[in-house]
């Protein structure tokens, strides 16, 4: 629950922050500090802006998936089907484009359609039939993964011309380029997926911050009972969060597909866990009611950055990635848990003193 303590008794910037803002600022600080450390100690091109843009290029899909995940987590749920859905979408689009001779617009519709279908079915089961979200989406994930191999078994690259053209479209960013080995100035670039991801982050940020629907998500996640008493349609809000998450999984799936340009059953393996980890590192609480899309954005970037750093340091064996992500996740979870416990204690203490004072005044 993001409880504001605005009653002047507690001073200091940190204490007056809501849980959401506090956790978000920790994440942003961690990201910035890590990046500065990387620039100072590693010097392997971290100073070049393109390094940052490459982080974005590689993780645009993850940012979109994690945004959807954040939304679901704010309402107190979880959706672990997004990775499977991404793989299924890549495979379906790849088959549609290459084996069925479809066009790109159709592929986009397929992607969004699959994502929405998963969102609607899962949302209905969770919101209206009150089945545990974890079980439903776990089944969703296995269904998607199984379906991927049923659709097509072998991994293959897509050679559809229109799609390849779309895939290779780059948006150049002036003034931030760098001089390459041959002394030629090269513009910095981002892929279309990054633009999509940033747009989604911006839209979701506005929706969650300033619209009634957005605030409803927080209310439902913070306390279902109170939300119900305030006249919020709790079931519909929960349902909507899964539908939006499914929609974003659809878009994210297509962005992923655009980045890799191939279909394979092993695509996006572990993406759901990375998305959850990004959200948690970004300051979203699993208990619901606390979370911030901007935090999630930086959470994803931190996760990507630390993998990059681990690789640059020379620990390039595959297992280090898993271990670092887990370690980071662990630290953030424990920090969150400690912060929240301390705040709760402080709140309780304050309440007690207030009650005492009121009693004194009463006498």
């Amino acid at each position: 629950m993001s409880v504001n303590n605005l009653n002047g008794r507690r001073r200091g910037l940190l204490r007056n922050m809501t849980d959401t803002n506090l956790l978000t600022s920790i994440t942003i600080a961690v990201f910035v500090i890590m990046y500065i450390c990387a620039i100072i100690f590693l010097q392997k091109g971290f100073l070049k802006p393109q390094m940052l843009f490459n982080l974005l290029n590689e993780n645009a899909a993850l940012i979109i998936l994690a945004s959807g995940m954040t939304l679901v987590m704010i309402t107190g749920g979880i959706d672990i089907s997004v990775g499977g859905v991404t793989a299924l979408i890549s495979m379906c689009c790849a088959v549609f484009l290459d084996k069925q001779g479809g066009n790109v617009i159709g592929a986009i519709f397929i992607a969004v359609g699959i994502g929405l279908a998963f969102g609607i079915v899962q949302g209905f089961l969770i919101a209206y039939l009150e089945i545990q979200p974890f079980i439903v989406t776990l089944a969703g994930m296995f269904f998607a993964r199984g379906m991927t191999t049923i659709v097509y078994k072998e991994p293959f690259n897509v050679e559809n011309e229109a799609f390849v053209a779309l895939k290779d479209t780059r948006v150049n960013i002036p003034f931030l380029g760098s001089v390459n080995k041959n002394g030629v100035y090269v513009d910095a670039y981002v892929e279309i997926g990054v633009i999509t991801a940033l747009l989604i982050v911006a839209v979701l940020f506005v929706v969650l911050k300033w619209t009634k629907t957005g605030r409803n998500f927080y209310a439902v996640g913070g306390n279902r009972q109170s939300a119900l008493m305030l006249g919020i349609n709790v079931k519909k809000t929960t349902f909507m969060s899964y539908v939006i998450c499914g929609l974003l999984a659809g878009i994210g799936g297509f962005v992923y597909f655009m980045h890799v340009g191939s279909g394979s059953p092993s695509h996006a393996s572990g993406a759901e866990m990375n998305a959850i980890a990004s959200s948690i590192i970004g300051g979203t609480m699993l208990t619901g009611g606390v979370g911030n899309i901007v935090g999630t954005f930086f959470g994803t970037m931190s996760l990507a950055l630390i993998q990059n750093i681990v690789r640059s340091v020379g620990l390039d064996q595959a297992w280090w990635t898993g271990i670092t992500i887990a370690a980071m996740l662990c630290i953030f979870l424990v920090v969150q848990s400690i912060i929240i416990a301390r705040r709760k204690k402080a709140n309780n203490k304050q309440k007690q003193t207030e009650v005492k004072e009121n009693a004194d005044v009463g006498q």
Partner: protein
Amino acid sequence: MSKLPDVNGGGSVLSRVMRNQILIPLAALFLLAIFNLIADPSFFAITLKENNMGNPVLSGQLISIIDNGSELAILAIGMTLVTASSKGQDISVGAAVAISGSVILRVLCGTDNSPETLQAPIIVAFLVAAVASMLFGAFNGVLVAYFRIQPMVATLILFTAGRSIAAWINNNQLPIAPGEEFKVFGGFIPGIPIPTPFLIAILCFIVTWAMLKFTNIGLYSQSVGINEKTARLNGLNPELIKLATYVILGLCVAVTGLIKVSRISTINYSVIAKDIEMDTILAVALGGNSLSGGKFNMAASILGAYVIQFLTTTLYKFKVPSTALPAYKAVVVIVLVVLSAPVVREKLSRLMKKIRSSKNTAENHA
């Protein structure tokens, strides 16, 4: 939360059937058996053969079910306790099995990848793996009990890192344990035609039964799962009990790891015990246990595990490729959880009542 609403208010046969937990997996087993009997009666054939070691062994689909279902059943024991006490599931069991298997091979093979003889007694290897698994279990348990992180998320950490840690323990090599001695745990004991994993599982069941009978862990974990505050007021230590259930699950993981590596004498980090967490959770759910904690029925969970293996074997028999298996299982899970959802049950019982009352009125009119 943990208790399903008493939908039919007593009386009818259906409600009594619905209320006895073990009937849920039994009914599923019955349905699967009938299905197989109609499709191909040879499914149930059991033959006595000689294996390549010259030992008489039983073989057949049913034997393969009790053989391969044993790991699942052993894990289901621990998972049931964890579910009951902490209102959530441990999703890291697959990864933890990989770690335990890796530890066993590391101890057995030492630094050499394919030594001529075992470098350490098997029992030592198993004990080291058991300690390691219990430590990892305790790690999960501490996060859940003391830091109050949701179980599925706390175990997400080990889920992400587990297979990497397993690979790291053996330096990403694939050591091969030599000799026939080690193969016994995943194969057959000379002279006994029943697969060893099943015997190990039986041993685990007896230990579990004794544990539930003579200690309070079962009662305590249920009361913590039903209401933590009340449990505390009654003098229990909920944190310690939750931690204990995770440590017990760690022990189950170690046993599973031993069987899994013994089957092939080596390990494949990304494949060993893959998706077993899903099956284990499913076994608990199929046993009619509430996944949101509280009361449990251990026998039903164990039976649930074998029913799932039955389903898997049936699907294999119908030439479903192993990669597509999850899709079919997911459908079964969804059907199962939808049917057992309180909301759906309530609707169904209301429907039943309506039918009954309309029948009554019709009789009255007549």
